[in-house]
């Protein structure tokens, strides 16, 4: 049972345009969400997080949107840069629960110069 889903395995975007990466979850108890970026042969690195008390969190070129009713979050990267090319994972957890983070399967973003 995949509780966190990233249905797009890959995405290509032109440099300078917006990249939108999507993530859906099924467990309504999840209340904290994160995005990680992973380059080949490296461990994932944290990008941005959002608590369920918010519907938007912004950090520079990265914005995460949370739609609790739809159980959907998205990561927007504007403007996209070639260095953003990586695999992006969303993760979710229940703060008062088991402290276990559930990761999606990842979306490979390719930003074309």
């Amino acid at each position, binding site marked *: 049972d995949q509780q966190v889903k*990233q249905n797009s395995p890959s995405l290509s975007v032109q440099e300078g345009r917006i990249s939108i990466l999507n993530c859906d979850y099924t467990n309504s108890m999840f209340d*904290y969400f*994160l995005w*990680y970026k992973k380059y080949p*042969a*490296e*461990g*994932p*690195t*944290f990008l941005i*997080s959002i*608590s369920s008390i918010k519907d938007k969190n912004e950090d520079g070129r990265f914005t995460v949107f949370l739609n609790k009713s739809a159980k959907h979050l998205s990561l927007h990267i504007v403007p996209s840069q070639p260095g953003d090319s990586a695999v992006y*994972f969303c*993760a979710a*957890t229940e*703060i008062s629960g*088991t*402290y*276990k*983070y*559930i*990761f*999606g*399967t*990842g979306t490979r973003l390719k930003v074309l110069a």
Partner: protein
Amino acid sequence: GAGVSQSPSNKVTEKGKDVELRCDPISGHTALYWYRQRLGQGLEFLIYFQGNSAPDKSGLPSDRFSAERTGESVSTLTIQRTQQEDSAVYLCASSGGLTDEQYFGPGTRLTVT
């Protein structure tokens, strides 16, 4: 400062042998996680350590897998009688607390022949 380190970086072993993977978390981080990433798949939670609390072992796929952590320091993940399906990148992460970002190590690539 030093990040999370893992050793070995690569391990090739014969089916049926035992392997031990090591993780050195960031000093002072109370939480430590082990994940597995099989080819083409997302990060799969294995086990979570938090301070002196009993570890959350709910993600361990079989009783061939075990992990230990010495206080808030080094952790070892042991896989006994390895099988070919154990081939994956094993990632360790540490964090200062549940909602703190996780810092990942570079991973150990395990190949079971």
